């Protein structure tokens, strides 16, 4: 696999951030937090009340330690209540509403409601920069043709960040997500005659690769100039990542981002998502965000190697900043001392989950990403769906798998073996035996962005 140009050589600015000592990085964070709190104490009722409640009188912060101990956390519920009481942005906005030029809303998939973020001109630039930063490190440069498979536009952060980012870097962007079918995308890619970079959700990169292979197209032969694949949003097994790189002939990079971060807050930089068969690391962009990884019950920092909830504070966002916001995202914490150089903390690749997606099944904590990893470790599988239901008072789990189109010639014996293998892999990763059966690929549609593979019908089992 060709190595990428060292982004830290290409950018003295990036090299400066990468070369910071931990003490210098934390001093930088403290200066930013102090400016943020002073501004919000003066301009945001929501945050002023929280600072006063926590004992940060006047918005004065004298240390990061004091900040994380005194400043109360906030969450989606608090933001929704605030904007309901003070529409449309809530009293957390922190800037003159006349300065708002861009709206970012969360997708609403949690069912609780959509948070609204009012962003300023400055924030729109940072939105682009916080997408451009990881893509620069992943090798995207002026003159490259970049394919953005994430639905563009609308009112989401992910809808506008990629366009801004690709322009900032001087590359040529084709925003094909959400407005072209997979078949039409493939037609376009082949017509372009040369592409260099693809940004997609994990799930959609899988779908696109599967569709190319089903047409007898080898991505690495059809697109020999490709030098970067960048995914976000969902977990995956290491084996899948290795196969994707082999099919495309280039490195796979990953980022962690969200609306609350106004873009990405971590990425694999140029190192790729795996290291010799084990998972790689996403380094946190800690000079732009303060990221705590805490036990979701005690809110105490987790120990190295443990999974915790990410709590984020924006250091460079003007409008609707997130300050100690509980994301609900679960990540494995790797401290900077164990991350292979530099002072940036890290999180593990491919395993970001949602605490509110966690399923309690027969006493076990099961995340969809665990089953994703077990299922997609089998390259023959194109898609799957899971269903939890109650039958005669007992919790049952059904996993329907479909063979990928390019593996349609698999014989009956191999299919039966595949089902057994998937069942055992799921048990190994989740400690739960699930009922696995094969169904036709046509039973599943496509997910343009984030996949929703699980339904929980347990409550229906309790109807009288």
């Amino acid at each position, binding site marked *: 696999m060709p190595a990428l140009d060292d982004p830290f050589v290409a950018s003295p*600015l990036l090299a*400066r*951030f990468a070369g910071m000592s931990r003490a210098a990085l934390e001093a*930088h964070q403290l*200066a*930013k937090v102090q*400016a943020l709190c002073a*501004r919000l104490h003066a301009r945001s009722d929501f945050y002023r009340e929280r600072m006063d409640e926590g004992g940060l009188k006047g918005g004065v912060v004298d240390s990061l330690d004091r900040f994380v101990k005194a400043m109360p956390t906030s969450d989606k519920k608090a933001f929704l209540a605030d904007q309901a009481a003070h529409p449309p942005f809530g009293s957390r906005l922190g*800037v003159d509403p006349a*300065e708002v030029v861009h709206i970012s809303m969360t997708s609403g998939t949690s069912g609780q409601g959509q948070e609204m973020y009012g962003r*300023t*001109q*400055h924030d*729109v*630039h*940072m939105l682009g*920069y916080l997408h451009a930063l990881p893509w620069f490190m992943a090798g995207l440069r002026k003159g490259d043709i970049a394919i953005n498979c994430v639905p563009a536009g609308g009112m989401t952060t992910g809808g506008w960040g990629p366009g801004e980012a690709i322009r900032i870097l001087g590359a040529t962007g084709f925003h094909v997500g959400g407005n072209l079918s997979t078949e039409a995308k493939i037609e376009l890619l082949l017509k372009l005659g040369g592409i260099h970079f693809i940004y997609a959700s994990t799930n959609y990169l899988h779908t696109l690769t599967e569709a190319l292979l089903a047409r007898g197209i080898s991505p690495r032969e059809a697109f020999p100039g490709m030098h970067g694949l960048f995914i976000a949003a969902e977990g995956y097994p290491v084996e899948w990542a290795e196969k994707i790189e082999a099919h495309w002939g280039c490195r796979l990079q990953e980022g962690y981002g969200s609306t609350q971060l106004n873009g990405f807050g971590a990425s694999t930089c140029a190192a790729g998502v795996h290291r010799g068969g084990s998972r790689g690391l996403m380094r946190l962009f800690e*000079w*732009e965000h303060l990221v705590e990884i805490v036990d979701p019950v005690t809110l105490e920092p987790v120990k190295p190697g443990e999974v915790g909830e990410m709590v984020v504070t924006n250091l*460079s966002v*003007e409008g609707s900043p997130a300050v100690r916001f509980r994301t609900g995202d679960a990540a494995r914490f790797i401290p900077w001392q164990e991350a292979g150089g530099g002072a940036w903390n890290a999180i593990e690749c491919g395993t970001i989950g949602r605490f509110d997606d966690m399923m309690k099944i027969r006493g076990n904590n099961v995340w969809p990403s665990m089953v994703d990893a077990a299922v997609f470790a089998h390259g023959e599988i194109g898609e799957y769906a899971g269903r939890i239901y109650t039958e005669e008072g007992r919790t049952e789990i059904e996993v329907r798998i479909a063979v990928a189109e390019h593996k349609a010639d698999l014989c009956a014996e191999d299919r039966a073996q595949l089902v057994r293998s998937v069942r055992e892999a799921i048990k190994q990763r989740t400690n739960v035996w699930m009922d696995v059966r094969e169904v036709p690929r046509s039973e599943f549609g496509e997910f343009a962005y984030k996949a929703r593979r699980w339904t929980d019908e347990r409550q229906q089992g309790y109807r009288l």
Partner: protein
Amino acid sequence: MDEDRILAEMLTLADRLAASEDALMAGQYAYLRARIAALIELRGAVAPAA
């Protein structure tokens, strides 16, 4: 090249443009000023008040 100094000078000039009374240009000057201010901040400076 002292990029930080150049950006600081550009911000001063953009502030002067932002005082324009041309309503058609005002938003575009604000856009320009915000981009310069963002570049200053992403290079590591603590942002001045919005």
